[in-house]
Each structure stands twice: as structure tokens, then as C-alpha cells.
């Protein structure tokens, strides 16, 4: 069986599984959709949350960004896990006690203001749509590869599948489908990593292999990697090169954003008890950590493997020849990935060999001149392909490659569906039913939800054709927006009795507005390429990149809300009582619809 058929088989089988579970679970409980998580054990809920949470950014993109940068991109690892501490300690138990179903609903009730609810809807939509753009980028890469078409065609096919899937996923039984998706994606991520770790270090646990010894040379793996990349003029893998201030702000922005993303917060509204909300966050992080502890090993080992392939006899010997790339089956992955337009090489100096090195490094320029090299010849290596190409690079069996394709799609689809659900419920439930037309029929509400979903997909697909960055970088922008707008409002709603309606609205508007403008100034207005006035290489404010600005936005949000609240009347007594009651678990009762 050829690889193409095998990929189709794995992807098809995984889809059949999700659809089967959805049908089975729907038959079991047709009554309540929103309360899908109720009566679900915290461990199961944690697993479903993990599937919702880990997207194309975590699965497809993150390890590639770590592989080509090293230590400096540790921010992704700390940021996307550290946020769960904030979520568990500062939000989850209280929002569960509050007992409603959407984030704008909490904000609207706590700040006793339809305006606050409307602003929360806008914040939610802006952050979620940006997040979906990142997912579409990842979906494009995955479909492009496994259907063996260009990235753009892959993206368009992916958009249709996501739409069909989200409309379908917007039904009952989501929790168990997500448990299945988690199982597929974690197996797809760890199995190739275990194979590769065994090949390189002899240790079956990738996270331990990363800090173990490289079997072929006997040196520690990371020392070997540092040596080999510096020989080619690249920055040392384990060293700190990035600007420290920016790294701290970026990590913080990802953490706060994690705790401010509506589709994850929603999961904690519906667990059976307040105590379960606390445990659920912990279990979610356990399942997320299985991938996040493996990711840095995947990155480092892939970097070592790729470098080895390009310099099969060491960096001092001859580079790999064009003939080898074309004929040796070990190099077949290069030809298949070239078709997607995401990998490219060119024999610039016509010596029949492909020299891969850093042609910006002064020492390497001198060496290249002496050797007759005319620049780096591995001209294009899209970071987003690394995880998907990894099993092929390591020459693993065909079924592993098919499994990884299925896993990447599971990650992208589950998150995209969760986000589209959050967007459509914000539009139909909070905006239309809550504000514009309270008397809308159930049918009308459902229709508006579908339309909102379709519009969100079209916008995200269009922008996904020219994404503002690799999948994980686009997603990082979404986190910045959530950090600057939603998290501060939720936290102040619980931890302060003094913050009032005017303060909260002003805070959210300032946080979202300033962050959005800062991002657009660097990434182009509405992410249209070429309309930017600054560049992240040389940002407007010192060294603060647009991806890191969310933490500044969050600080501005807190400050504005507190200052404005102090200048205006304090919240009425019944709101202060509401805050009191949210703080104690007793009397939580069932989450109620209204």
C-alpha cells in the first residue's frame, strides 16, 4: 500500500470514529447541549479540555518553532501551560459557582450592564477569529501534505471540512468525541517521538532522552546539537539570545491569554461541582503536559536529524548531493514536501550538492567563499511542516506517518470547532438573543449561529491564505488579545467588589483597542500584508514585539478599570452580594439555563 492510501485510511478511520461517537452519544442524551460536561468525571472533562485546547499551534507548529530557535522559544512551553495555574487559582472555581454558560453572560451580570456584555462579545469574537486564522494555517499544511496538493488548495479543502465538522460538532456528545480526539492526537504525537528518541538516545521516553546521551557519539544530546549547529554558523541551541524583556512579556501574555480564552473557560462552567472545577484544571494540564513535555524533545531531535541528513558525513565533509536527494528513498520526504511549496532547495553554485548553513554569519561567509558556496541552498523550510514531516525524516514506518496526519487534523479540527462554537454562541445567544432581538425563535437563534460560523470561517480562510505568521505565531496574537481584554475583566469581577460597570467597560475597550492597534501596526491592518508601519524586527516600543503586547494591554486594562471605578459610583449592594456568593463554594447547585 502506498503512503497516500495509508494516510487517507488513517484520516478516514479517525473521522469515522469521531462521527460514530457523536451519533452514539447523541442518542444517549438529546436533552441538554450546553450541559454536555455535567455528570462527566473531572478526568474525562480534563481530557476533553486538553483536546479543545491543544490546537494546530501546539501539535503542528510549536515543536518546529522550538527546533529552529532553541531555548528562546521556551516561552511557548511555559506560557501555554502556566496559564492553567491562573485558570485554576483565579477563575475556574468561581465561574463554576456563578453557574451560567457563557463568558459575556458573566461579564454582563457581574457588571450589571448590557454594554459590558456587548463589549465582551466583541472581545471574544476578535480573539477567537484571530485564533481560527492560526488553525486554518495549520489545516492548510496538514491537508496540503496528505492529499499531496499545494498549501492553498489544502487550505480551501480544509475550510470546507472544518465548516462541515463545526456544524456537526455543534451538537450533543462533544465531550466524548473530544476524548477520542485527544487519544488520537496524543498517540500521533508521542509514538513517532518514542521511535526517534530510541534511535538517537536509546531512551524510550523522549522527555528523558532530551537530557540523555546521543547514542552515536556518546556525548549529551544537547551538547552534540549545540556543537553541530554552531559549526554551520547557527545560534547555539541551548543559549539565551532573545531580548529578555520581550521574552518575559511574551511568556506572560501567553499565560494570561490561556486563562482568558472563551472556549476553554466555558468547559469549567458546567462541571458538576466547584471542587471538580479545581481538579478538572489539574487533569487538563496532566493531559496537556504529556504533549508539552514531549515537544521540546521532538524539536531538538528533529533539528539534529535534519542537520545530519544535509551533512551525512559531518559538517566538515561534503554536503548531501542532489543525486542522493532524488534517488535515495531516505530523502523521499523532501520531494513530497516540495509539492506543498513549503520546502525548497536550489543548487545555487551548481556543484551538484546542497549546502545547508547560515549564510548571514560572518565566519560562515568566509568559509563559504573558500569552499565556493553561493549561499544557503536549503532555501525554504517552513517551520510548520516539521512535526508532520518528522516521522518521514526519521524514516519511520508508513503507518506512523498516516497516524501523524490524523493527529494533526484532530488537533486543528477540535480546536477550530470549539472556537467556532464559542463565536456562534456569542453571536446568537449573547448578541442577538441577549440584546438585539430577545424574542427570537429557537430556529432563528440556530440559524444565526450557523451564519455566524460561516462568516467566521470565510474571514479566517481568506486571512489564512496570507497568514501574519506561522500557525503558532498567529495563535500567539489571539492569546495577546484575550489577555488584554477578557482575563482582566473576569478576574476583577471576582477579586474586587469595587470595580463597577463603567470601569470594566473602559478597561476592556482600552485593553482590546490598544493591543489591536499595536498588532495591526506591526502585522498590517486586518492582517492585510503591506499595510503595516512597523515590523516585529524593529518594533515601535523598544524591543516589545506585537506578539508580546498582550501583557501590556492587560496591565492597561486593569489600571483603567481601577482608576475609572474609583472616580465613579460603587456597584449596588446586590452586585456586591453576588461577588460574595461567587467566592464560596456552598450552594453551587446545578448550572442553570435561563
Amino acid at each position: 500500500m502506498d503512503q497516500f492510501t495509508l494516510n487517507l485510511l488513517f484520516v478516514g478511520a479517525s473521522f469515522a470514529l469521531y462521527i460514530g461517537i457523536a451519533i452514539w452519544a447523541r442518542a444517549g442524551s438529546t436533552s441538554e447541549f450546553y450541559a454536555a460536561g455535567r455528570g462527566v468525571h473531572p478526568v474525562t472533562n480534563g481530557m476533553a479540555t486538553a483536546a479543545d485546547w491543544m490546537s494546530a499551534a501546539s501539535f503542528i507548529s510549536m515543536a518546529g518553532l522550538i527546533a529552529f530557535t532553541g531555548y528562546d522559544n521556551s516561552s511557548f512551553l511555559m506560557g501555554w501551560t502556566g496559564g492553567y495555574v491562573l485558570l485554576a487559582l483565579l477563575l475556574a472555581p468561581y465561574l463554576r459557582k456563578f453557574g451560567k454558560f457563557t463568558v459575556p453572560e458573566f461579564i454582563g451580570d457581574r457588571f450589571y450592564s448590557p454594554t459590558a456584555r456587548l463589549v465582551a462579545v466583541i472581545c471574544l469574537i476578535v480573539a477567537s477569529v484571530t485564533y481560527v486564522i492560526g488553525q486554518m494555517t495549520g489545516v492548510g499544511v496538514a491537508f496540503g501534505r496528505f492529499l499531496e496538493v499545494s498549501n492553498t488548495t489544502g487550505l480551501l479543502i480544509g475550510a470546507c471540512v472544518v465548516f462541515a465538522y463545526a456544524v456537526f460538532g455543534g451538537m450533543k456528545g462533544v465531550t466524548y468525541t473530544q476524548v477520542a480526539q485527544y487519544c488520537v492526537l496524543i498517540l500521533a504525537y508521542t509514538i513517532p517521538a518514542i521511535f526517534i528518541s530510541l534511535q538517537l538516545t536509546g531512551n524510550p521516553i523522549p522527555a528523558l532522552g532530551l537530557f540523555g546521551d546521543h547514542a552515536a557519539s556518546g556525548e549529551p544530546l544537547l551538547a552534540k546539537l549545540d556543537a553541530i549547529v554552531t559549526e554551520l554558523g547557527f545560534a547555539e541551541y541551548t543559549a539565551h539570545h532573545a531580548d529578555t524583556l520581550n521574552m518575559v512579556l511574551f511568556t506572560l501574555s501567553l499565560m494570561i491569554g490561556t486563562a482568558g480564552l472563551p472556549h476553554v473557560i466555558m468547559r469549567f462552567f458546567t462541571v458538576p461541582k466547584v471542587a471538580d472545577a479545581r481538579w478538572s484544571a489539574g487533569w487538563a494540564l496532566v493531559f496537556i503536559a504529556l504533549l508539552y513535555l514531549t515537544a521540546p524533545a521532538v524539536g531538538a531531535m528533529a533539528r539534529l536529524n535534519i542537520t545530519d541528513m544535509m551533512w551525512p558525513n559531518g559538517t566538515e565533509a561534503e554536503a548531501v548531493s542532489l543525486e542522493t536527494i532524488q534517488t535515495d528513498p531516505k530523502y523521499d520526504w523532501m520531494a513530497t514536501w516540495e509539492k506543498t511549496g513549503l520546502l525548497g532547495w536550489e543548487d545555487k553554485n551548481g556543484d551538484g550538492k546542497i549546502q545547508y548553513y547560515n549564510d548571514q554569519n560572518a565566519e560562515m561567509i568566509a568559509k563559504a567563499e573558500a569552499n565556493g558556496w553561493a549561499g544557503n541552498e536549503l532555501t525554504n523550510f517552513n517551520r510548520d511542516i516539521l512535526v508532520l514531516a518528522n516521522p518521514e525524516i526519521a524514516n519511520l514506518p508508513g503507518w506512523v506517518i498516516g497516524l501523524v496526519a490524523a493527529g494533526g487534523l484532530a488537533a486543528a479540527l477540535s480546536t477550530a470547532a470549539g472556537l467556532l462554537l464559542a463565536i456562534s454562541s456569542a453571536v446568537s445567544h449573547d448578541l442577538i438573543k441577549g440584546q438585539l432581538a430577545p424574542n427570537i425563535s429557537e430556529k432563528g437563534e440556530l440559524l444565526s449561529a450557523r451564519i455566524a460560523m460561516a462568516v467566521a470561517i470565510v474571514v479566517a480562510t481568506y486571512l489564512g491564505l496570507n497568514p501574519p505568521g506561522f500557525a503558532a505565531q498567529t495563535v500567539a496574537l489571539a492569546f495577546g488579545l484575550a489577555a488584554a481584554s477578557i482575563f482582566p475583566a473576569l478576574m476583577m469581577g471576582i477579586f474586587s467588589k469595587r470595580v463597577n460597570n463603567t470601569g470594566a467597560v473602559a478597561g476592556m475597550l482600552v485593553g482590546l483597542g490598544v493591543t489591536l492597534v499595536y498588532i495591526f501596526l506591526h502585522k498590517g491592518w486586518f492582517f492585510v500584508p503591506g499595510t503595516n508601519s512597523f515590523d516585529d524586527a524593529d518594533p515601535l516600543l523598544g524591543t516589545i514585539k506585537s506578539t508580546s503586547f498582550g501583557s501590556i494591554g492587560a496591565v492597561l486594562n486593569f489600571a483603567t478599570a481601577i482608576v475609572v471605578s474609583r472616580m465613579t459610583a460603587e456597584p449596588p449592594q446586590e452586585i456586591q452580594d453576588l461577588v460574595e456568593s461567587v467566592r464560596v463554594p456552598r450552594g453551587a447547585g446545578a448550572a442553570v439555563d435561563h
Partner: protein
Amino acid sequence: MADKSSNAYWAANIRIVTLCLIIWAIVSFGFGILLRPLLAGISVGGTDLGFWFAQQGSILVFLALIFFYAWRMNRLDAEHGVDEE
């Protein structure tokens, strides 16, 4: 439930949260980034302890913190009689 007890419960909660967040910040922003040069002397698998904290250690500590908090708060709820029936 008297107001006094409710205030004591909330104050105790804030103390636990603060302690956890201090540890949260020290392992990630501290050991993982800002204090990494201080840990440079302690080598772990071909690199230093700061690198380990940035790529693995902080995640393990985060996990411990969340489970500690859940366990401690459930006990606190019972002590103050505000747990769910």
C-alpha cells in the same frame, strides 16, 4: 454562615493563592528566564538547570501547584463549613 467566618475563609484563600503564584513566577520567569545565569553552574544533560526549568521543570511545578491548590482548598472549604453538601 457568619460574615466573620466568610472573611477569614476568603483571607485564607488569598494567602494560598498568593503563595502558589509566587512559586509559579519563580520557576517560570525566575529560574526559566531571569535567574538562568545564576543556575548556569548546575549542569543537567549537556546544558544547565535554567534550560531544564524553561523546557520541563516549570511544567512539572505547575502541575504540582494546581493539585496542591485543589487539595488544600477542599480542606479549607470543609474547615470553614462552606463546602458543597
